[in-house]
């Protein structure tokens, strides 16, 4: 496809130096199309504009979403985990996240292809250093209770979440970044976020990626379970805390026509009954199932499994401040025993990508692909054990929650580290016992010498880096304290430019290979089993299901 230099110049003349730098990278081949779309969306460039730029640069059109072949009027039945809390401010359970987003919406949406698309905001822009982000709101959006969504509602939503007394999980993303009162109304349809420090990927923090940021009316009084007042394509029909919920289309929805006549959500406490219900035709979709659970469905010709690559992972952490893991050589030796290819092929049935002992998943555009991949090397691991004075090995205990494939993964690790003389005992706890109150001193997760943890998908690695690895992190289970890491992470989070992000990411990735506070062996794919013939179901890797375009073929 030939380049249209005149059109490209014309389009570029309206863009900022930062945006033009991204286009330079795309045209020169330093940034691929996926990265171009993704980072362009973070900077607030619309998908049509990105498409025109791509065409003008002679690099082809960008893909668009289609709704072809979907019959309207269907009832879509979804199996999901029983929700714990329905208050969007305190929301944290997978079932709650799924239900609330049926009626509520976000400023922007992290799409399954990890491109940010406009939702209640139509566009956004950073200032020059990324400390102020301006969002333009969509006009004519109605709450289910009747009022129009305006800037006051958005300001109140973010002030509520940024309030240190809110106890919202969103604080893990906003702490030290967005204070209460820092979301300001410019007019009824324009707001500004004034950040404590520059954040290059800030739009992700106010997108569906941060599931607490559902826009609520300014008058919200914590009674969501009664009012279910949002702006989304569905409104509540019936809710039974123990059994399930059903939704019907919201007539005054601002967006495309909602296709299903009804959606039903059936609550389950375990995945196995969901699998049986899907096979038995009682439900059409399972919101999420791990690879190990999905094995039961992979050979079923009546089931399709929708897979989305994600940054979600199972990390193994080793306490850097107590023996024997206070020696980085021991930690590296453990990491070198892990057979990542076997994990992906065998345990994950191919539904994962190999990790390189940092939270920089290959799906992130900012991940530096030139960093050497750590592979299994038992001989080198033995040398490291010898250099650390541990050639005879030692006994240790790994503690983990009984969740998903973690016990199976732990048994494989146990077998592999035995080859270098580490006698690893397993302690498997139920989730609540393991997590405790998620505070140092009263949480096995944060206190044990060696443990495992499940981390859900994030559009950007900021939370993983800041919360679980920085010296001041609230969930730093490895007790990893490294000034160089802290400085690099702050630089990474602040960088607006993709290539600057990637350069810093590379340094962090190399430092983590050297220090190895944990093992990040693979990043799992998010799997949603769907009955054949059910089309238009759009899951994302955050456990959210977009059903407004769903139907039966």
């Amino acid at each position, binding site marked *: 496809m030939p380049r249209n230099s005149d059109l490209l110049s014309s389009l570029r003349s309206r863009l900022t130096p930062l945006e033009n730098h991204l286009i330079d990278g795309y045209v020169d081949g330093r940034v691929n199309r996926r990265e171009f779309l993704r980072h362009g969306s973070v900077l607030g460039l619309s998908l049509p504009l990105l498409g025109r730029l791509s065409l003008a640069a002679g690099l082809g059109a960008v893909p668009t979403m289609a709704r072809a072949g979907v019959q309207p009027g269907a009832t879509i039945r979804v199996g999901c985990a029983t929700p714990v809390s329905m208050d969007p401010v305190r929301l944290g359970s997978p079932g709650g996240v799924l239900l609330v987003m049926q009626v509520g919406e976000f400023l922007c949406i992290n799409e399954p292809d990890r491109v940010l698309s406009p939702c209640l905001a139509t566009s956004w822009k950073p200032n020059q250093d990324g400390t102020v982000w301006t969002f333009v709101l969509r006009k004519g959006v109605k709450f289910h209770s009747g009022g129009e969504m305006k800037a006051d509602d958005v300001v109140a939503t973010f002030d509520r979440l940024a309030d240190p007394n809110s106890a919202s999980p969103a604080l893990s993303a906003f702490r030290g970044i967005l204070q209460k009162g820092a979301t300001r109304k410019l007019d009824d349809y324009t707001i500004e976020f004034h950040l404590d420090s520059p954040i290059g990927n800030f739009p992700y923090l106010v997108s569906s990626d941060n599931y607490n940021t559902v826009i609520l009316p300014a008058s919200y009084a914590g009674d969501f379970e009664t009012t279910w007042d949002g702006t989304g394509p569905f409104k509540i029909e019936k809710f039974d805390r123990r059994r399930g919920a059903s939704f019907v289309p919201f007539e005054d929805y601002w967006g495309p026509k909602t296709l299903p006549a009804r959606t039903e959500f059936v609550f389950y406490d375990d995945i196995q009954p969901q699998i*049986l219900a899907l*096979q038995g035709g009682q439900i059409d979709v399972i919101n999420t199932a791990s690879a190990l659970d999905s094995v*039961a469905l*992979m*050979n079923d010709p009546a089931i399709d499994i929708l897979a989305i690559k994600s940054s979600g992972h199972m990390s193994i952490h080793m306490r850097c401040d107590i023996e024997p893991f206070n020696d980085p050589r021991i930690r590296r030796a453990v990491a070198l025993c892990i057979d990542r290819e076997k994990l992906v092929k065998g345990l994950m049935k191919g539904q994962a990508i190999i990790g390189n002992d940092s939270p920089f998943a290959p799906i992130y555009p900012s991940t530096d692909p030139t960093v050497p991949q750590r592979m299994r090397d038992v001989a080198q691991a033995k040398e490291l054990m010898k250099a650390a004075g541990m050639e005879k090995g030692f006994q240790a205990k790994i503690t983990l929650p009984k969740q998903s494939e973690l016990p199976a993964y732990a048994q*494989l690790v146990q*077998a592999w580290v035995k080859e270098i003389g580490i006698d690893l005992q397993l*302690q*498997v*706890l139920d989730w609540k016992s393991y997590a405790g109150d998620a505070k140092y001193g009263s949480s096995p997760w944060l206190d044990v010498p060696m443990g495992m943890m499940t981390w859900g998908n994030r559009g950007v690695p900021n939370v993983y880096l800041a919360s679980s690895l920085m010296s001041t992190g609230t969930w730093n289970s490895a007790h990893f304290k490294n000034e160089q890491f802290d400085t690099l992470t702050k630089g990474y989070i602040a960088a607006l430019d993709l290539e600057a992000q990637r350069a810093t990411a590379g340094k962090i990735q190399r430092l983590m290979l050297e220090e190895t506070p944990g093992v990040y062996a693979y990043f799992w794919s998010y799997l949603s089993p769907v009955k054949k013939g059910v089309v238009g179901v759009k899951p994302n890797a955050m456990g959210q299901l977009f059903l407004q375009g769903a139907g039966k073929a």
Partner: protein
Amino acid sequence: MTSIAAAPHARRKELLAALLRSGSFLTGVIIVLFWIACALFGRHFVPYDPLAEDILDSLAQPSAQHWFGTDPLGRDIFSRFIVGSRDILTVAPLATVLGTLIGTALGLLTGYFRGIVDDVVSRLFEAFMAMPTIIVALLAIVALGTSKTTVIIVIGLAFAPSIARTVRSAVLSERELDYVAAAKLRRENAAHIMFVEILPNVLPPVVVESTVRLSYAIFGVATLSFLGFGLQPPSPDWGLSISANYGMIAGGYWWTVLFDALAIASLVIGVNLIADGLHGALDA
């Protein structure tokens, strides 16, 4: 003195003959001996290391290479099936012995002394037995931490009240008999009367009750393992394996669960057949 005390040798011969005539007892013994042999020597004749994973050969169907197939980690299920009896046959009998010792001692005390001792201890037993055993066991394990010792203590203590009640009932009738009065006239102390005079005469119901309790203990250990509160991975324990793999049934991977379930069932049936045979022989 009682007939056992008067002619113990003849009584034992009679009992042995009755047991050897009992089909259910012999069948039970064969089943249990098979599993004991597996527990003791299984590791020496299984075709694969029961802990050795081969993740790239996971969930293989039963075949000549893997008679019972492989589990999700590619481990040979037949090898784990054989060796899996080891932990359950260690924990369940020890828990039963502990429960029997404590229960018998308490049953003798309450039945012999009666009065305030009987009232207080019996009410405590009733309160304890009113709570579901598995819930009590779970609470204790959460408080004490998971280990084989904890499971033995918890199940042993949980069974003690029912054994104590059985012993108490037997002691209540025995304490009124002449040989007990004779012992008192000889100024024997209470401990001697309870443990030397009365105990041999209440042993038959104790033995039967203990055997029945053993089958409950097998279920208890398997249940705790299934719930994740018993033995820890990578133990080939049957309950643990069922817990780890039961989700596979829906996908058609029946072999990951069926053989372990059959193993538990056969061991429980074997123990129950022994209890049945004992009961018949002792009543004869």
